[in-house]
């Protein structure tokens, strides 16, 4: 199927009343969670995932994806008005957006943020549509060793970019692999790490871990005392939210910069929207005719990162849908969702499930229009959500978490696991252990072990099979990525010792 006919099929799927409603609902919920600091897309998608099991998978995927990219739109609101990023990907927006708001240009900052998000989100979707099908064809020749090496590389990149401490990120991933090993071994039917519990024979459901770590852990972290932050006023009326022609002219390069950087960085596992937004901000500053003004409220400094964090979403869907390799906690949950609904993301996904793939792509075009409409005139309404007290929100999150888990299995035992993983999620936040490697280790652990064991079966136990050209290159790249920071660290320790001696 060529791209044009695929897109026509996609729009015929996405434009059905039910799927349009799901797209709108996803975008709306995404904007809400983007606006609310402390409630992110991974927690929301994880909480809602069990509720989608009875739904049509295409509509459910359209909704969950809408939450994913919709949150990027909403995340800028608090960055601009409160200097508090709604999402980590909106941190770079604080730098110029808040300064603009302090100078009385909050409307223009919010407006350009929505427009940049729309432009980059749309360009990112075009790129997804053009890149994903040929990439999927290219990877059709991959077998178990190549997949194992690809998953190792994907996990390595996530670990590398997950936090300050490489050791903690690796440990987090190991715990994810351990949880993935729990249950009955599919090759030998051996029970592993079940602690004598029959409920554990099927392993631990991914949804329990995701909701526990992201939703319950997040609520616990938000319970800690914090200082209230003042919000700057939003100008009333759509006219006051629209940037001037000069603003739009100034942001021409920023739109392109954000779109290209965001999409390309999004494809890389682990890199994520935060890196892409800072990278595009840095590029914007370096090519600017007035770099000295950056930090004082320059509109290009809002447009570039906001564009990048939206284009990143489309980029992140490329490895997810064509290789079955997620690059972040949120895409890991989306991968789990697809698997739970009975799909197999990978090279054959587009061919086997064209309605879902093209329906999703088409819904992203529609979603970006919906988000522009939602975020320009209604930004003041969404900002009111920031006045919602914690005591109204936290019980709701905990309640939805309980219902979400209970509806998957009707098991109180699983709810007990949810309580346990909530504590794990909180402990990880307190101890600065990144959560993304754990979730990715859990999602990929099973497939990774399967690919490794299949590879070794193919070679009758010889590791030489992993040194075929493609896996060898991927594994060498992974090893290189892990060694480089160690050398850098070694070097910094050496310099520190020399300094102390001096």
């Amino acid at each position: 199927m060529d791209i044009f006919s695929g897109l026509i099929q996609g729009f015929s799927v996405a434009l059905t009343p039910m799927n349009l409603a799901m797209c709108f609902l996803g975008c709306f919920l995404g904007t809400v969670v983007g606006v609310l600091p402390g409630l992110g897309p991974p927690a929301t998608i994880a909480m809602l995932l069990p509720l989608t099991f009875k739904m049509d998978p295409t509509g459910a995927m359209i909704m969950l994806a809408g939450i994913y990219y919709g949150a990027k739109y909403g995340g800028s609101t608090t960055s601009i008005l409160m200097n508090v990023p709604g999402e980590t990907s909106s941190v770079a927006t604080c730098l110029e957006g808040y300064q603009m708001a302090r100078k009385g240009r909050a409307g223009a900052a919010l407006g350009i943020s929505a427009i940049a998000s729309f432009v980059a989100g749309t360009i990112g979707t075009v790129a997804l549509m053009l890149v994903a099908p040929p990439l999927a064809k290219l990877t059709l020749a991959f077998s178990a060793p190549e997949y194992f090496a690809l998953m190792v590389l994907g996990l390595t990149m996530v670990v590398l970019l997950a936090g300050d401490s490489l050791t903690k990120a690796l440990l987090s991933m190991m715990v994810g692999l351990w949880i993935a090993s729990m249950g009955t071994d599919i090759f030998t039917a051996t029970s592993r790490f079940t602690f004598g519990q029959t409920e554990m024979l099927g392993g631990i459901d991914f949804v329990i871990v995701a909701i526990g770590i992201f939703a319950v852990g997040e609520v616990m972290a938000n319970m800690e005392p914090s200082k209230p932050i003042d919000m700057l006023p939003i100008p009333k009326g759509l006219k006051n939210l629209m940037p001037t022609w000069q603003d739009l002219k100034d942001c021409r390069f920023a739109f392109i910069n954000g779109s290209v950087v965001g999409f390309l960085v999004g494809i890389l596992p682990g890199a994520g929207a935060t890196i892409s937004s800072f990278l595009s901000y840095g590029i914007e500053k370096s090519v600017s005719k007035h770099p000295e003004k950056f930090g004082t409220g320059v509109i290009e400094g809002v447009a570039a990162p906001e564009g990048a964090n939206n284009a990143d979403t489309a980029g992140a869907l490329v490895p997810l849908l064509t290789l079955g390799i997620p690059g972040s906690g949120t895409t890991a949950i989306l991968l789990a969702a697809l698997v739970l609904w009975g799909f197999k993301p990978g090279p054959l996904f587009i061919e086997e499930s064209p309605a879902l793939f093209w329906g999703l792509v088409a819904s992203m075009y529609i979603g970006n229009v919906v988000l522009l409409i939602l975020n320009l005139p209604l930004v003041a309404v969404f900002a009111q959500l920031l006045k919602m007290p914690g005591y109204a929100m936290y019980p709701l999150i905990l309640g939805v978490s309980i219902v979400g888990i209970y509806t998957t299995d009707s098991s109180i035992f699983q709810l007990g696991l949810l309580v346990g993983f909530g504590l794990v999620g909180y402990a990880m936040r307190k101890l600065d252990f990144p959560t993304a490697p754990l979730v990715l280790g859990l999602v990929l652990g099973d497939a990774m072990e399967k690919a490794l064991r299949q590879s070794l079966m193919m070679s009758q136990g010889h590791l030489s099979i992993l040194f075929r050209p493609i896996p060898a290159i991927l594994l060498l790249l992974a090893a290189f990525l892990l060694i480089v920071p160690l050398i850098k660290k070694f070097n910094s320790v050496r310099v520190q010792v020399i300094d102390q001696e001096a």
Partner: protein
Amino acid sequence: MNSFTRKGDFWAGLALAALGVYIISQALGWTYMAEEGPGAGFFPLWYGMVMIVLSLLLVAGTVLKHDPTAKRKEVRWAEMRRAMTCWAAFAVCVAVIKYVGFMIAFGLLTWFIVAIMFKRPQRVALAYAIGGALGFYALFSWGLELQLPIGTLFQ
């Protein structure tokens, strides 16, 4: 007490090292390599070993490295009290669901969070507790036709 024992990383490293030892001890009881290929113990044995090495590195790093931000990284129990209280309330809610069902357990959890943790007036707490429980029933049981947990006391 030495300063490193007040750091969370030290205890986290020890706990993860113990987990690594447990994983290896279990994996050694399973087949490592059979004629047809790797057995159930193959993969866990390797990541268990990596886990031990990494956790000991974390412990060693905490003990040996001079960290100027060490004070900031110490566990602050006072800050954690509210979070742990919330978690305990959530755990109790889940524990009593089996007996009293979701509606009552969730209502009690909401009342506890609003009235005790956020110190709001009783009428506000009760309104949130009853309204929230009824809202969940309306949305999930009526709207989405999903089964909410029912307590044994009401069966």
